[in-house]
């Protein structure tokens, strides 16, 4: 019973905070941040696209870090955490790719631009992590599934920055260098709006992660209860699953 409350605890507050932050971000995007001189209204997608992509990449690395927890302790809950982190990051990543594509079409005239290192490296990372679920799915033994998936998550998590460097060096820049290591290259009003939007999406990710963890936890507890009440054979999931159980 205890573990269920851990994930569900604070979920309501977190959800409210997320809604409020994203609400404020939207208000700022549409009423406070100035129109971009060159791109006009289309540039507003920046406040969705960039946070989505950043959260997604951080989510992949987060999944890799959680997987280290599994390999160190052998506790299956770490595997579950890593799985949910990568699963959510994948969803965010697809969102980031689609919004990025829309932005590219609107401002450069093409749906896909190869000489844009951020976009290309993001695609490669997404292609790699897209194999996470098929990998899990094709291993039947749950303990081995968790172990191999953790190894994959760690290697792929380390791959994220490496890949970014390699692709960055291979291409010339056309993307606006909005966020460089030297600091944000934005007017202050846009910077504030972006920051609020970024916080909003980080909160959204955390909320969804906790929500999914609570749901998965509840499901496995219900299954365990059914098994004790109705015998060994009941409550077993039908078929195999990529998700840890």
């Amino acid at each position, binding site marked *: 019973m205890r573990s269920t409350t851990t994930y569900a605890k604070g979920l309501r507050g977190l959800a409210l905070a997320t809604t409020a932050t994203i609400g404020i971000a939207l208000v700022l995007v549409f009423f406070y941040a100035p129109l971009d001189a060159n791109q006009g209204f289309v540039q507003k997608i920046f406040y969705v696209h960039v946070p989505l992509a950043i959260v997604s990449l951080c989510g992949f690395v987060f999944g890799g870090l959680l997987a280290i927890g599994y390999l160190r302790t052998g506790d299956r809950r770490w595997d579950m955490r890593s799985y949910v982190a990568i699963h959510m990051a994948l969803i965010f990543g697809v969102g980031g790719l689609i919004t990025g594509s829309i932005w590219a079409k609107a401002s450069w005239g093409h749906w896909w631009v190869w000489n844009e290192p951020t976009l290309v490296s993001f695609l490669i990372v997404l292609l790699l992590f897209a194999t996470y679920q098929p990998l899990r799915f*094709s*291993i039947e033994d749950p303990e081995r599934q968790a172990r*191999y998936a953790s190894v994959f998550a760690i*290697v792929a998590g380390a791959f994220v920055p*490496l*890949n970014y460097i*390699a692709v960055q060096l291979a291409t010339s820049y056309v993307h606006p260098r909005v966020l460089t290591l030297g600091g944000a290259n934005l007017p202050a009003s846009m910077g504030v709006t972006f920051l609020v939007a970024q916080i909003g999406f980080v909160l959204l990710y955390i909320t969804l992660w906790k929500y999914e963890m609570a749901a998965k936890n509840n499901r496995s507890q219900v299954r365990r209860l059914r098994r004790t009440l109705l015998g060994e054979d009941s409550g077993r999931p039908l078929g195999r699953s990529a998700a840890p159980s």
Partner: protein
Amino acid sequence: MRTALIVLRKDLRLELRTLETVPAMVLFSLVTFVIFHFGLNQNTISGQLAAGVLTATLLFAAMLGVNRLFVAEREQGGFDAFLLAPVDRSAMLLAKATALFLFLAALEVVAVPAFGLFLLGPSLGPALPGLIVVLALADLALAVIGTLVSAIAVHTRARDLIGPMIGLPLLIPALIATARATGPLLAAQHAASAPPGRWLLILALYDVVFALLAYAVFDFLLED
């Protein structure tokens, strides 16, 4: 170290007696050159295009070797025997990566001259020293990542699918660096004599990072 040497010797002897992997990789790359000749509809190619064709062919040929790497261990119970033996498990990584590296080197001894003969416009000779350096670094990346991916894939149901599926995206940065480093060497005019140092550096960095990473996680792939 001794364990690794013993496993490596076993792998090489197995390959010499059965001739299962390397000849298949060689034949595959020769056929791929023919396919590229018709696909591109060109008699000779040079520069970045040639580099891309060579890199892609070697990469896909390497995938054949990656798929075969642990099959004997799995089917003949080699894994169990290795786990029962009181030896360091990293020896398996070292042995298998070296074996794959040697397979790739053997493949390239045939495939690169064949590429020069069939497709390459400018003569291969001046490019050869630089090409050997680039390919050695690329083979290292292929060997390390290939061994890691193969060890993951061999215990899955769809192992022939999972191997390339995980391996190819992981190898893309190495592929970029290899192709970019090879391009200037194979240029039709003003061919560079040395590959660009920046790409060699990236390849070397990639090799080192993934070698360390593979060393750190490999033990977990051999448990139970």
